[in-house]
């Protein structure tokens, strides 16, 4: 045994000497030798028929898709098409789900509660709170995701997405990030939580964190309805009838583009401050184009992405529903907690161009952007009437545009409020599903906090500046 140990030490010493002698050439020589072998083996057993059709097609597609003229337009067009199909396609199913879960099942459950003699608070917490919030999230979240994710995944399977990273890398490199962030950013337009998970494709931890923290500035599916609604009511209303639709749509697109702008800005900022570092070794393989298996992809992407995200969202929405009901129905000295909070937030909120209802809504609706508008509506009605209890308190609701417009105007909303809400919706903290996902992906409390707090602060600052400019010019 002793002898063997000594022999081993000798061997290890000799190895060390040889290592110092050869140095870096080891890897060079080794890999070169391997490839010579590989080339010979391939020469023996692989035959390529002269340039078959598929091979030339790959090149043809690449030449168009990365060309100076067509590259960018094609990317923008594809993203636009995906988003458009998502929004239009989700409209009808969302309404159907809404009708089913809220107009039919909800009253049914209330009836069940009554026949079981539920006390008001139990029926309130469980049915008005937990069930309603969850139902809302499902109705609004599920259809767009069930469309966006499969579409996106099909593009991915086809092999197009690495080309997007290839086209945009220069911009990201200048911002201190990686071209693959283009992909995670795009995914974020569907859902920020999924976008955060997608950052796994970025190898460098530093660049991955940048992608995670900035993913929030991709306007996710859950925020589109809010943006469209507010844009229609406030911005569309100040232009002539015929133009209102175009202008409203245009301003929502403007917000989305602004979000992309912020992504680059904040990436650059992070890479100069908190996430300083060398650009990582960049390598990007462009795989061959492969015809996707459409049904398989749709199936797996729905299970893998849609249902997982939905599950997490429901997990967070349920308690939030309970909280919303409770703060609206528990009163202290004649006022519900909600109204107390609204009044307390108002000074600061008005200062930056929002109002107390909005701030409170964003706090309790942190689980999901989808319930922000219903919460705002409910709280606005609550604060106007300023009474506790009653069948309306704590019960989320929605309405058509004129109804919503009425309520908001009655609540003191102006065009400025509308604009600021659109900005704040873009720039506020990520929803709790995303925050949770960030924590799971990074394992770091510090970075999760940064990712959560940075956008809010930006939101406050931007709203404040817009308000100041508004008062200056208007």
């Amino acid at each position, binding site marked *: 045994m002793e002898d063997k140990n000594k022999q081993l030490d000798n061997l290890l010493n*000799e190895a060390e000497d040889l290592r110092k002698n050869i140095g870096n050439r080891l890897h060079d020589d080794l890999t070169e*030798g391997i490839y010579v072998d590989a080339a010979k083996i391939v020469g023996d057993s692989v035959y390529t028929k002269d340039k078959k059709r598929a091979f030339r097609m790959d090149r043809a597609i690449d030449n168009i898709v990365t060309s100076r003229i067509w590259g960018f337009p094609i990317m923008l067009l594809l993203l636009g098409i995906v988003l458009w199909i998502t929004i239009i396609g989700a409209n009808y199913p969302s309404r159907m789900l809404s009708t089913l879960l809220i107009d039919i099942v909800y009253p049914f459950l209330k009836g069940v509660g009554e026949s079981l003699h539920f006390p008001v608070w139990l029926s309130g917490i469980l049915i008005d709170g937990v069930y309603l919030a969850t139902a809302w999230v499902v109705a609004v979240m599920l259809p767009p995701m069930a469309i966006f994710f499969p579409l996106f995944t099909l593009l991915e399977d086809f092999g197009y997405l690495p080309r997007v990273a290839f086209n945009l890398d220069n911009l990201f490199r200048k911002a201190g990030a990686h071209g693959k962030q283009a992909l995670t950013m795009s995914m974020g337009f569907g859902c920020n939580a999924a976008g955060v998970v997608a950052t796994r494709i970025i190898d460098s931890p530093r660049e991955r964190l940048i992608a995670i923290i900035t993913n929030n500035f991709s306007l996710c599916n859950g925020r589109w309805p809010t943006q469209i609604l507010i844009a229609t009511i406030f911005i569309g209303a100040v232009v002539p009838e015929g133009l209102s639709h175009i202008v409203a749509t245009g301003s929502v697109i403007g917000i989305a583009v602004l979000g992309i702008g912020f992504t680059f800005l904040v990436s650059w900022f992070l890479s100069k401050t908190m996430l300083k570092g060398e650009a990582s070794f960049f390598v990007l393989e462009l795989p061959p184009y492969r015809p996707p298996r459409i049904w398989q992809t749709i199936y797996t992407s729905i299970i893998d992405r849609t249902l997982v995200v939905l599950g997490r969202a429901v997990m967070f929405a349920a308690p939030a529903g309970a909280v919303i009901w409770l703060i609206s129905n528990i009163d202290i000295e004649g006022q519900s907690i909600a109204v107390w909070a609204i009044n307390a937030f108002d000074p600061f909120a008005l200062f930056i161009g929002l109002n107390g209802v909005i701030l409170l809504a964003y706090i309790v609706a942190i689980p999901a952007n989808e319930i922000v508008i219903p919460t705002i509506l409910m709280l606005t009605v609550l604060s106007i009437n300023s009474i506790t209890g009653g069948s309306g308190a704590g019960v989320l609701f929605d309405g058509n545009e004129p109804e919503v417009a009425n309520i908001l105007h009655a609540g003191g909303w102006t065009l400025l409020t509308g604009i600021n809400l659109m900005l704040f919706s873009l720039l506020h903290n990520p929803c709790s599903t995303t925050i949770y996902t960030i924590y799971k992906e990074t394992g770091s409390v510090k970075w999760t906090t940064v990712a959560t707090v940075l956008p809010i602060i930006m939101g406050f600052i931007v709203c404040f500046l817009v308000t100041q400019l508004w008062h200056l010019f208007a």
Partner: protein
Amino acid sequence: MNEICNTCKYNTASGLKKLGEKVTDYDYVVALAGNPNTGKSTVFNTLTGLRQHTGNWPGKTVATAMGSFSYLDKTFKLVDLPGTYSLLSTSEDEEIARDFILFGKPDVTIVVADAGRLERNLNLALQILEITDKAVLCLNLMDEAARHGVEVDDRTLARDLGIPVVPTTARSNKGMDNLLQTIYDLAENKIVTQPHRIKNVLGETATAIEKLSNKLTDLYPGLPNSRWIAMRLLEGDTSIITALKEGRLG
């Protein structure tokens, strides 16, 4: 079956708990290696019946998955290693992959390759053949190769590589039975392989590897992969040095 698996850092307790079973419950352990973007995940899913999403994005599969399957009278645990281009670098993925094949001593290692773009894939394959004898080359994406007009003479390839070669198109389930049979036969030692050893390394590196490799076999006569160990020592791989000192190798 493999006690080494219980101590391997790669074998996380949480991963095992999720599957609800221990390694010792299986007859054989099979490792799944390959370049990114070779359809390795599809092979994994097809063998284990899972439905994890796979995508045409190089390097997408993350923290590796474990699954299981049974064939004839035996049960197999399948470990999906991270997709890597090589085993020689310092990246975490490559470390995990090579440590598992070397220390984990799987009973069979499947190397998944893209049939239409074999040359680069062989870099990894040839390295793996320096570590383990019990390997099979899964020549996947045969449908794509056909589309591009690429034909592979798998018999010649098998002869040159010294291991079985199974052409497959995992996403249409073609060739998978053949693969399963080959895995079974390899595990049961019904096939004996004579894996190709890297021949064409030049100059001083070649001499150094030769020298060290011989000394290693003198010291540890049973050591099957002395050339690989020699290469790692020349690299200064501390985990190998420690393993030698602790007697975990040879």
